[in-house]
């Protein structure tokens, strides 16, 4: 049997509320499949499963708030046979092993009728036996996206009526304004916890470098010319790519500091800081940023921003970032000195691109410039390595074509512009 535990979805999360299961006992699951939705203080997250198997038992019910590492479900490994199916079938006890005190199911637990009907697949343990559901109630439940079987019925033989469904829907949905306000409060708390820990534990050092962007912007402009809007690449994507490629040279900036030692990241999973309308931010990962073509990075970034704001991120995106990149955007200020998101060991910041004076070949010219900064963990790297990183970043951005082409190939030492 495999234990499927609630993964940590970021340092600032030590518990989560299970909102919904996408699987039931008996379902075969594949690695990477989204099996549940968990509400964290920051967002509702689609939780992926990390091995193939067959769901044997769901241990936590929707509505329960549990700490990280709690076993959410038991799985049979591929090929494994349930230890004693007879014993399990003989025990249709609705009370799950997990702490029932936190349970906050939709249905305020009417006395469950003993499982007289044999349901082919084990019913949701919280719902005990299913009550009949009137067709109109079922239809309405579908419209309202509620599971009619989770609603307690007040009709004949505890059947679920239209009114029951509507009552359940009202209970299930606190006013949107209250939700938003609560979410903002929770998110502020989560950010406070993570950033306080960072400043308490991580000896930050900071470096800054002004980078000419004329070549990169001219290249992008040429590339985007004549393309439909949806295929154009934003400068932010080229910057992201440059960070990931530059990190190949300074792996001490990419990874985690855990239990007193540094664990280098496998691949660059760049956490992209995304500010949310109304306050707060998230920094979900784009996996293997260094290996992806810029067209793909653009698509993934657009998708990530959309999903971060809609509150539908995946667990791996929340837990995986090996470094954070924060880009304050083109309408913003000159430089940002970031606070490292533990257990990561570095944060790269970009200010806005602006035309400023620059000396080149003994002449002062007006050029678009960007200030790149690095905040890094002195327990893992020194200013020398940090400086190498920023210098590499600067050089990469002077050869945008070569940078874009490092996409699919393994990182080459020489950029050979074609």
């Amino acid at each position, binding site marked *: 049997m495999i234990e499927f535990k609630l993964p940590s979805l970021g340092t600032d999360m030590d518990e989560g509320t299970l909102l919904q299961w996408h699987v039931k006992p008996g379902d075969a699951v594949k690695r990477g499949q989204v099996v549940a939705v968990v509400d964290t203080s920051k967002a509702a997250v689609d939780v992926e499963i990390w091995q193939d198997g067959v769901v044997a038992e769901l241990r936590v019910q929707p509505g329960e708030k549990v700490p990280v590492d709690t076993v959410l479900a038991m799985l049979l490994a591929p090929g494994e046979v349930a230890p004693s199916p007879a014993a399990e079938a003989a025990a249709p006890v609705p009370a799950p092993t997990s702490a029932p005190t936190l349970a906050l199911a939709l249905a305020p637990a009417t006395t469950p009728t003993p499982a007289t009907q044999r349901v082919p697949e084990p019913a949701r343990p919280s719902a005990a036996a299913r009550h009949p559901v009137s067709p109109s109630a079922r239809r309405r439940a579908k419209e309202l996206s509620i599971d009619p079987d989770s609603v307690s019925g007040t009709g004949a033989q505890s059947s679920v009526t239209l009114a029951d469904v509507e009552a359940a829907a009202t209970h299930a949905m606190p006013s949107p304004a209250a939700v938003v306000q609560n979410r903002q409060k929770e998110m502020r708390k989560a950010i406070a916890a993570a950033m306080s820990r960072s400043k308490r534990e991580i000896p930050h050092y900071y470096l800054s470098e002004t980078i000419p962007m004329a070549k990169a912007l001219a290249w992008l402009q040429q590339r985007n*010319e004549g393309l439909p809007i*949806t295929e*154009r690449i934003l400068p*932010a994507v080229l910057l992201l790519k440059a960070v990931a490629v530059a990190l190949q040279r300074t792996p001490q900036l990419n990874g985690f500091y855990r239990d007193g030692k540094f664990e280098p990241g496998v691949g660059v999973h760049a956490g992209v800081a995304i500010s949310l309308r109304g306050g707060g931010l998230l920094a979900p990962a784009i996996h293997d940023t260094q290996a992806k073509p810029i067209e793909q990075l653009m698509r993934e970034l657009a998708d990530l*921003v959309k999903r971060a704001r809609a509150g539908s991120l995946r667990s791996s995106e929340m837990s995986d970032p090996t470094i954070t990149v924060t880009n304050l955007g083109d309408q913003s200020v000159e430089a940002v000195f970031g606070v490292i998101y533990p257990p990561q060991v570095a944060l790269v910041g970009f200010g806005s691109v602006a035309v400023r004076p620059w000396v080149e070949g003994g002449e002062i010219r007006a050029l678009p410039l960007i200030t790149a900064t690095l905040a890094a963990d002195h327990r893992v790297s020194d200013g020398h390595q940090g400086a190498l990183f920023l210098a590499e970043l600067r050089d990469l951005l002077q050869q945008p074509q070569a940078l874009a082409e490092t996409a699919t190939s393994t990182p080459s030492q020489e950029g050979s512009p074609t």
Partner: protein
Amino acid sequence: MSYDRPALTGSVLEILRSIAPEVEPAGIDLTRPLRHQVDLDSMDWLNFLVGLQGRFGVNIPEADYAQLITLDNVLDYLRERLRPAAA
């Protein structure tokens, strides 16, 4: 398809609100730089343009972004390009 100015303004504001739901249309000054009034990052701006393209079928080249500072600029730009069809 023909758009009079109020209808066009309404449609554009609707697209803007799909990206920045907190925007109060009445609070937008058509003559002041849009991105000083509404918090739009480069991705939001791009999505705004994608929205305009979807609604009006106008593909706005990147070189023209610099002309689109105020909402009035955007409306003029669109009317200019929609005119042949509106004739």
